[in-house]
């Protein structure tokens, strides 16, 4: 029932925003719906904390603690993103970059987007999961092209084409899994379905050759959506062109939702093939992503793209963590998802503000930001520090634990390579930040009087710091969730 509610709330919100003409309160309402999702997520976590799954719709929707955790992540980031809606929209309407009609569309699409992601994490059937993730592409296309500029159109075109192809491959992979399940030799064909639980049950009997091909196609396909190299290319364009809250939502959760799908399939593949093959696969894509992110960040010119590539980097880290595969590693991966969601959405939202205030997203054109806009610059700076994995922010502890888990399974060389990449990334990002944040005198400081920006972002950073120092409310949940897909 809870899971059904989780889907219903944003869906209804979307419908409302379509039928009711744009008012500022609709924006607030959308934020409320996101808060509702978050609340339900927490409720789900409590309900599923004792290793029991909650099902609805005759088992079509199934929430175990992993899905519940994902719901929480989605809820948190959506809340952050939707809290911006009223201000951003009325601002744009005032400036004439948007019409009230399109504002309503915007809200509706945001809600649709959230609904799709929730469906993806709550679906029991892996086919439905696929459908939902493909649907997110459709829902977000017009969000990406919201500003209707040539660049925005270009970005969304690339986004659709690349993601659809990738996702198509993922579908092929799913079909192969189904095929392998049909001919697993256990259970009558009638009983066989694409339900994750049933697949896990017969996983050990699945045909190896088919499963290898399947998992590889899945990694490549869903990897496109996750933003893993070599099919990461859409990410920078889409994130740099979309409205800031949308980028926040995409980078903060969409990527991790797709990664959630990979986690589910990896569990099956591990059971079917043993850990070696999936591990190798994840290591390859993970390291490749880190490498690509590192070299592309060195001479980066646009700070939104910079953030996008750092998403590629962090997805690579997640892949490596998943490669380790121990329950500790998965717990760290999940913690990293949450921390990355908080941090990256904070950064994207504040970068949107910066872009709006400065009128450019080029690093070279901005100087002495911290002096001129202390609040905005401060938030952005702290966000960067958090992103670079400094304590007390949670990314430090999750990255550390992932590295630890990787070394535990003998992947120290992977850790070594990734540390080299991380150092390069660290130096590049600090270098860029130095140029556009520091310097100047504070006499010309302009205060930022938008509480709806400052409060949520500061709260998000504080939350990330708190989780990094002491995640006692999450610890049991993390372990339970990790236990779902890792032994």
């Amino acid at each position, binding site marked *: 029932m809870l899971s059904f509610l989780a889907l219903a709330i944003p869906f209804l919100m979307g419908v409302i925003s379509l039928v009711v003409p744009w008012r500022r309160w609709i924006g607030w309402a959308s934020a409320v719906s996101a808060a509702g999702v978050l609340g339900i997520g927490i409720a789900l976590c409590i309900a599923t904390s004792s290793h029991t799954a909650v099902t609805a719709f005759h088992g079509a929707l199934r929430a175990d603690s992993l899905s519940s955790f994902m719901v929480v992540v989605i809820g948190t980031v959506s809340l952050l993103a939707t809290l911006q809606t009223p201000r951003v929209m009325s601002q744009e309407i005032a400036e004439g970059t948007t019409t009230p009609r399109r504002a309503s569309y915007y809200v509706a699409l945001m809600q649709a987007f959230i609904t799709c992601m929730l469906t993806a994490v709550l679906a029991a059937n892996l086919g439905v999961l696929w459908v939902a993730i493909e649907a997110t592409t459709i829902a977000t296309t017009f969000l990406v092209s919201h500003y209707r500029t040539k660049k925005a159109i270009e970005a969304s075109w690339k986004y659709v084409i690349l993601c659809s192809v990738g996702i198509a491959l993922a579908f092929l992979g799913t079909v192969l899994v189904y095929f392998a399940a049909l001919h697993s030799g256990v259970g009558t064909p009638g009983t066989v379905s694409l339900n994750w639980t049933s697949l896990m049950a017969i996983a050990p009997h699945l045909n190896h050759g088919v499963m290898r091909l399947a998992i590889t196609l899945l990694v490549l396909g869903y990897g496109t959506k996750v933003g893993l190299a*070599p099919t990461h290319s859409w990410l920078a364009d889409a994130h740099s062109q979309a409205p800031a809250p949308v980028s926040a939502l995409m980078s903060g959760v969409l990527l991790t939702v797709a990664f959630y799908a990979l986690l589910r399939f990896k569990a099956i593949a591990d059971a079917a093939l043993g850990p070696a093959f999936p591990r190798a696969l994840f290591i390859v894509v993970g390291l490749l992503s880190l490498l690509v992110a590192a*070299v592309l960040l*060195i001479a980066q010119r646009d700070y939104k793209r910079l953030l996008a590539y750092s998403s590629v980097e962090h997805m690579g880290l997640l892949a490596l963590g998943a490669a380790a595969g121990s329950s500790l590693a998965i717990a760290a991966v999940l913690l990293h998802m949450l921390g990355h969601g908080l941090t990256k959405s904070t950064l994207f939202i504040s970068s949107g503000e910066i872009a709006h205030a400065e009128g450019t997203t080029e690093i070279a054109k901005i100087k002495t930001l911290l002096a001129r806009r202390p609040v905005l610059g401060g938030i952005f700076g702290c966000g960067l520090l958090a992103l670079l*994995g400094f304590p007390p922010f*949670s990314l430090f*502890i999750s990255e550390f634990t992932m590295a630890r888990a990787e070394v535990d399974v003998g992947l120290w060389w992977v850790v070594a390579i990734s540390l080299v990449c991380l*150092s390069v990334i660290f130096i590049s990002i600090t270098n860029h930040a*130095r140029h556009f944040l520091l*310097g100047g005198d504070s006499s010309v400081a302009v205060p930022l009087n938008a509480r709806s920006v400052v409060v949520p972002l500061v709260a998000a950073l504080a939350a990330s710091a708190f989780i990094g120092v002491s995640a006692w409310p999450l*610890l049991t949940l993390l372990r339970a969730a990790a236990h779902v897909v890792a032994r």
Partner: protein
Amino acid sequence: MVLFMAGLGCCVLGVVAATVISLERRVIVVTLVGSVGCLLTFTAASQVLVSGRAESFHSSLVLPLAGINLTLDPLGALFVAMTSFVGVATLVYCVGYARGELRSRSALSLLLVFLMSLLVVPAASSVVTLMFFWELMALSSMLLIMVEQRRRVETRVAAQWYGAMTQLGAASILLGLLLLSTKGGQTFGDIRSHVAALSPTLRSFAFVLTLIGFASKAGAVPFHVWLPKAHPEAPSPVSALMSSAMVAMGVYGIVRVGNDLLGGGTLWWWIIVVALGVVSALFGALHAVTSVDLKRLLAYSTIDILGLVLIGVGCSGALAASGHPRTAHLALIGALLLVVSHAAFKGCLFLGVGAIERATGSRSLDHLGGLIRRIPISTALFVVGALSIVAVPAFSGFTSEWLLLQGLLHGFVGKSSPTLIMLLVGVVALALTGGLTAVAFVKVIGIGFLGQARSTAAASAHEVPRTMQIGMGILCIPCVVLGVAPGIVIPLLNRAIQTGHSSSVSRPVETGIGLSLVHLRGAIEPMLLLAGFVVIVAVIAGANSIRRRPARKVEAWRGGGDRPTARMQYTATSYAEPLQRVFADVLRPEIDVEVTHAVESHYYEQSLSYESRVGDAIERLAYQPAIRAVTRVGLAARRIQNGSVHRYLAFGFIALLIILVVLA
């Protein structure tokens, strides 16, 4: 442990205070709370040092997925005590020093965060705890360097360099420690119990990795590049904390991992350590001699002294590895005592430079002069630090270097030739640096404080606030006490190294009125020497002043010319010029002389300008090329994302084909 946690609590409280309290009362309250915290931790640490019993604390709620582990054993306690002491002095100093940016909420809270992380690092007893606070230390210090970033671009560059180096160092430490914690369990206890099961190659690999990281924190050449940039740019209290406490953490790390966790290890590990030490000592000493900027000079002398410490640690490790535990202990005690006294005198010196800067507004020796008459008290305190660093007998520097030398000297017993060669090299390095350090600080005192003022600012300097003097004074105490009565701390050091080395031998140093080596021939009684010196000077002075009028004040000898002006004096550059010329091949100074001849004749010169800069050769030859190379790669890599959707699709297509072919 309760006291220790209470002290840390005070630091946290101070952070809160820094953020909430209004400007006028902020500094005093924050420093007060912080000092109380430091006093508490100091008491806790000294209790452990005296009793020799380790205390620990664990909580799984803090630091998710691992939990925090703190253990205050004598080795850690030594560094905690040291840090707290310096912390108190620095905070007191801050009361008078803090102005402008340093009084801001962020700066003060960061200062306390930095102090707290410095206090926790030596007490951390699990990999995650260590790394967490290590990184916190790095972050807070990096931001503290940037406190005055709005004024100078150099500050930002320095912070960037520091950040980069510390990141690389932390990365290699992390990997090394993780390698050690593979066989289950990441607390130091687990590592100690499992380390024997690890393969020797793995252990060596881990040691080298951690060594790189810790050595870069200890400013060992060639990982030192950040140090001469960061120290000058940071506010003086911060540079004092960094140079005396943070840099020492590198030494702590090496001792902790090498001696404690890995329990000694093999010979060649320590040969590397000694090699690092020797290079750093010589390099640092030479650059200290030629530097003109006071803080830069102090930074290089930090590299020098820490190099000596590394020589001591390395030789001790080597001696232990080749079966001479007693001399090993002796050398290690010498090294640790040197660390402690370095913390005292270098802290004092950095605070002193802060005072000079406050009084004259300049850090460059060529703008100073005659300060002894303008700011006598600060001068006196600074001179105490300087005498201590040039190892004048009855000052802490001498005692520690004497112990170190004795350790090396009595190490020349074994037959293992690598050890002997190492000891020889170490001793030679010590001998070489001794004289150079003396030159550097004679230059500082003679040019900076004596003679005539070289600038109006120096001529009109005013004595700094009382609290600043007290801060320096606190640090002068150990400079003298450790020098005159080292017997006070030697027993504590004995305990500290018992936890260090796995094999526990009886105390290598007996302490009475002075120090005497056990079972070895060697002793000094600094107190008696001092007494003798005082008596003799008193006698001479007395005899000299019998029926004698006080000396008459006259003009200095004109040498046949006009009254000597300030510009006729030797400058810092010219003072060091002979040595710079002697060591030109190492220092690679960039000298440009510019002569414009008179129009009438080629033999007459209109004007002549001479400029000589001594840059960091290692940075120029090793780091800059690497940076350029990476940048080139980055520029080339842009072609990956050239905007063509077809190219992006091609990536996927090729990947797909490869997968299909590979799996077929």
